[in-house]
């Protein structure tokens, strides 16, 4: 893909749709943003700098991506909360293989059921985006948290 104004608009839409599905508590459609062999990872800047291969959350392939949401709905126990993703402008780079690399800064606020509200995460997305059947999808979405500390727990994807 070439980096055109049209592509920038489509990437913006992809990022908004992705964030709003989580913010609106509709994570059932979250897997649809990934390719079948997609990789989703949440790691930290420190782990990256130290070249530690293990992430905090890692879903490799559609099965594991779907299992995260099933677990969130059916297995895991936590206090009700929702996110609000604030997304900056992505920097897009065309890869030689037709995919596009995007790096984007984000802030996620977390509001608890009782109104307690705080900045939950400051992070960057490192994405590999491909086009499949006319739709943009993440072949890889890597969330790199600025802090190695996670407050309380991480259950909804970022």
């Amino acid at each position, binding site marked *: 893909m070439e980096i055109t104004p049209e592509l920038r608009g489509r990437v913006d839409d992809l990022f908004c749709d992705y964030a709003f599905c989580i913010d609106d508590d509709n994570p059932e459609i979250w897997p649809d943003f990934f390719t079948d062999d997609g990789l989703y990872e949440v790691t930290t800047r420190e782990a990256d700098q130290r070249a530690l291969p293990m992430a905090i959350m890692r879903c490799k392939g559609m099965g594991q991506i779907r299992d995260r949401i099933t*677990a969130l709905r059916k297995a895991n126990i936590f206090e009700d909360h929702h996110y609000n993703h604030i997304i900056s402008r992505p920097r897009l780079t065309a890869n030689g293989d037709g995919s596009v690399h995007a790096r984007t800064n984000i802030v996620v606020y977390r509001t608890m059921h009782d109104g307690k509200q705080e900045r939950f995460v400051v992070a960057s997305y490192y994405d590999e985006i491909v086009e499949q059947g006319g739709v943009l999808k993440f072949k890889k979405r890597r969330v790199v948290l600025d802090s190695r500390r996670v407050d309380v727990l991480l259950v909804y994807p970022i």
Partner: protein
Amino acid sequence: MPDTIVPASESLSQPLVWPAEGPTRVPFRVYHDPEILKLEHERIFRGAVWNYLCMEIEIPNKGDFKTTFVGEIPVIVTHNRDGEIHAMVNRCAHKGALVCLTERGNKQRLSCVYHSWTYDLTGQLRGVAFQDGLRGKGGMPEDFDLSKHRLEPLRVAVYNGIVFGTFSDETPDIETFLGKTVCDTLKRNFSRPHKIIGYHSQIIHNNWKLYAENVRDSYHATLLHTFYTTFKINRLDMDGGMILAEPIPWHSLSYAKRATIQEDEGYKDIHSAQFDETALEGPELLQSFHEFDDNITHMIQSNFPNLTFQFTLNSLAVRHFVPKGVGKTELHWYYIGYEDDTPEQEEMRINQGNLTGAAGYVSLEDGCINEFVQRGSHFSEGAEEFLEMGGKTVESSEASRATEVSIRGFWTGYRDIMGFGG
């Protein structure tokens, strides 16, 4: 253990009277009272215990240092030029400033940025800026003696790659302190060359002792963490038990074995067949390989005061939970692999990392559950916990892991060292 301990009731402005039932009761006040946290620093963290400092592999080279905390006391661990490991309080002997400002690094000398007081890697003072003054004026008095000043030292013991430190001269040797069960477990898990493959931390909004209870609480495991049952994952851990350390039952080992090994010889090393019936769409998450002949597939080994080792399938982690005030704790997760892991084995460890940590399928609830106790017990300091599951005794149990015996063991040791005993 010091035998001249001052009764804790004389050290607190409001005496704490432990309920007559002993370690089956815990007054909620111990989670909320800042005076008790202060006393814990005197009696536990500066007392006759071996505290976890770091992994030896974090400071492999001469000059490497790592900063950590003993309780809330900032500590530096160094690997000096003679190859020895030293530990000292990260507090300049001059004005008390932090000497090391980063979590890890490599240095020939430790130098305080405030007034350039400089120490060698054993913590001994080696130089003071302007010691002789400027142009013959000022400087330190004649009787100033560099050798009389140093960073406050801890004694260090390295056991199977784990670096421990103690402030007290009365702490017994490390093997006596840990006891046979813990020593055997550490040998099993850490005597092979190992490496750190993952690290993050988790802020939990509860007193550090609630996490010490939580890791010893085998009663809650299948009730709160429903991942295995929800996904119909065959329980791997039918046989198991809880072993308490002797003579003080403040460390413990909870373990479980897979019920049977049904695989053909050809599948001996990789077993994912047990997930046939699972509702997981990505069952490869739990693919594991046979590592130990004892067939233990799950172990939680907890050391007094604030350290736990977990080995779930092939996922080995060190959990160090550090108090940050009376109602807050930083839980550090270090994930460990072995130097001779094949890429496939490392991939399995990485995948299984999804089970634990801040986003762990079977651990994320622990990020909030202890906070629920912290919040639930606020200003109920006259009330107490009830801990009689599995009886009232404090003895090892091979029968059932639906027991609070290990928690009672923790409180038995805690009451004695704190002077809260009956």
